[in-house]
């Protein structure tokens, strides 16, 4: 039978920001399959011009409410690299702990509230609170633990207030409490694994290039070299050669490419490039879930996120123990002297690698700014994935309702942060 099919999703639900799905199949032949980002641009790079260096992190934080911590960390790192500021070891640990709080919060939000409803056949997590109350209670507790950690370490979960150029404003007093919370969270995470094992992950693969930071014995989060599964290696400052942004007429977000016409960043990319550096708890979960590098199934990003949750909680426990022995150490650099020059900060935020790049004048005011967002890097890849997915699944005789769900689930698997990608 020759099929005609149309999918037209205007403003996809359960994703951050505004994007549309358009699919057209005529007589069994795929004519069009598009992922269009239509978010309103805010022009952050323009607003940053002329701003004092102390405003850069608070301003770029507002690019995204979900990954505000990551934006601040990339922003601070870019400024510190430009001025040659070295932050004290205690501040490095606190920042990584704050980073882990965000990763856990964001992954938990995505896994339980945005992605899981599709696998359980619900429109949202609200009915799941009735059908699977224990799961939702556990999910809420995990997210609460993440936000509590963010508040203790960085002063607030959404748009944190304690991270400054030069370090972190204060050493938290509640490390003891945090230790207990993280121990309980690890148990909570392991308790929800059986549910994820019941999810039927769509069988779809498309050979993809995966880009992330390179871990040198440590699963990477803040700074370092850039790598891809196609063998590209660059320094942090060479990020432009890794991203190659260009414009697509249907999108307010830019697109990016490297060795192929698109690439992917995010939890699965980090997992694919740095599986070896995962902590044992996370590695054994990967084995349990049967996820091995390199996976080319974009739906596996959900599993990679769950594995990363376990990794960051296990690492948070180590960091807290180390910080308990550093209570009296400084958390701020002694001196911050603005100087003319430029700096890049690369940080692995929940959805992938984020770059901030600032050029400063001698007074510490920004002359030029560039922010390259993970979802910006993923948008072209989502688009090409969708084309192949529709092609494969339509050929298998999937109807348009199922196809719409598959396309929506594909986009959600990337956990896109759309307003962020346009900024």
């Amino acid at each position, binding site marked *: 039978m020759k099929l005609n099919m149309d999918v037209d999703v205007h403003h996809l*639900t359960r994703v951050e920001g505004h994007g549309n799905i358009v699919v057209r199949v005529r007589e069994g032949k795929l004519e069009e399959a598009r992922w269009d980002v239509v978010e309103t641009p805010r022009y952050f790079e323009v607003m940053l011009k002329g701003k004092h260096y102390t*405003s850069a992190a608070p301003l770029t934080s507002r690019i995204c409410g979900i990954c*505000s911590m990551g934006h601040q960390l990339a922003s601070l790192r870019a400024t510190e690299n430009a001025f040659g500021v070295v932050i004290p070891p205690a501040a490095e640990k606190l920042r990584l702990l704050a980073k882990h709080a965000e990763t856990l919060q964001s992954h938990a939000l995505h896994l339980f509230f945005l992605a899981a409803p599709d696998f359980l056949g619900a429109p949202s997590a609200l009915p799941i609170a009735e059908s699977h109350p224990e799961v939702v209670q556990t999910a*809420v507790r995990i997210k609460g633990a993440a936000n509590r950690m963010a508040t203790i370490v960085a002063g607030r979960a959404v748009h944190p207030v304690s991270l400054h150029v030069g370090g972190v404003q204060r050493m938290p007093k509640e490390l003891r409490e945090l230790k207990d919370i993280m121990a309980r969270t690890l148990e909570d995470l392991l308790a929800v694994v059986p549910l994820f094992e019941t999810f039927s992950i769509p069988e779809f693969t498309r050979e993809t290039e995966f880009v992330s930071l390179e871990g040198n014995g440590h699963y990477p989060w803040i700074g370092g070299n850039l790598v891809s599964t196609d063998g590209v290696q660059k320094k942090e400052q060479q990020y432009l050669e890794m991203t190659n942004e260009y414009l697509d007429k249907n999108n307010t977000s830019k697109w990016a490419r490297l060795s192929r016409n698109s690439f992917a960043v995010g939890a699965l990319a980090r997992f694919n490039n740095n599986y070896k550096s995962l902590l044992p708890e996370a590695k054994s979960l990967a084995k349990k879930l049967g996820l091995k590098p390199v996976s080319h199934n974009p739906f596996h990003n959900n599993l990679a996120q769950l594995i990363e949750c376990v990794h960051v909680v296990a690492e948070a426990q180590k960091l807290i123990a180390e910080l308990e022995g550093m209570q009296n150490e400084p958390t701020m650099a002694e001196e911050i002297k603005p100087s003319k020059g430029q700096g890049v900060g690369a940080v692995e935020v929940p959805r992938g690698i984020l770059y901030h790049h600032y050029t400063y004048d001698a007074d510490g005011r920004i002359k030029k700014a560039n922010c390259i967002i993970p979802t910006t890097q993923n948008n072209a890849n989502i688009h090409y994935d969708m084309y192949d997915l529709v092609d494969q699944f339509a050929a298998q005789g999937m109807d348009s309702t199922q196809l719409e769900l598959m396309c929506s689930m594909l986009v959600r698997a990337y956990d896109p942060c759309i307003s962020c990608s346009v900024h």
Partner: protein
Amino acid sequence: MKYLGIEPKRLRVGVFDFTSCEGCELQFANKEETLLDFLGAIDIVNFREISSDQGKDYDIAFVEGSITRSDEFARIIEIRRQAKILVALGSCACFGGVNALKNAYNLTDANREVYGTAPRETLPTRAIKEVVPVDMEIPGCPVNKDEVERIVQHLIWSIPFNFPEHPVCLECKQRFTTCVFEKGQLCLGPITRGGCTAPCPAGGTGCWGCRGEAAEPNFKEFSKIAHERGFSDLEISERMAFFGGFEGEK
């Protein structure tokens, strides 16, 4: 008892976003200790970010973000038509927030800078009240979830709620936070409206004025103090412009 024309039962709520970072609507899913009870007290009929249900029968619309493109006009007008009560959620919605910083630049140049020869449509940033009438405003970047809860309780059960107008300093003192001026930082706490519980000074950062101006702020006295501590007019005015909340001044 009816209040603002609404029966006191589970409120049918819609949450909508315009140009924003979506951090304020994220606060709806935060404060986990009361989250399930909070969600139990309201009936969410439309909240695109967390649900595929997109009902139109909401009584209360919480609107996040500012208006910066022509297609957003039609959407906000439709929401205003449907909602019995429209609440502006967060500084972007109340007074433009950081989005309004772009209004200081030439938008044609801004477009060229970001999109080169393929400019995208954009308008000067407007607060929601500049486009449609707004019944209530919850400022903050992000909003304080406690305050959202109290407003919802106020709307369901008519529990009295007064928008705080006192300055942030008062709440800062209640937490016994060391004043950040002592640490050499600028703080807008004396002239900014409280209600946030002063998380910024407690976290080691001066107040940036995200909630807008307090009742009868004494700008003169504030400038004098800030000058004495070595802060310039430029620093003060840049700080006040950051969230766009000091509409009367500068």
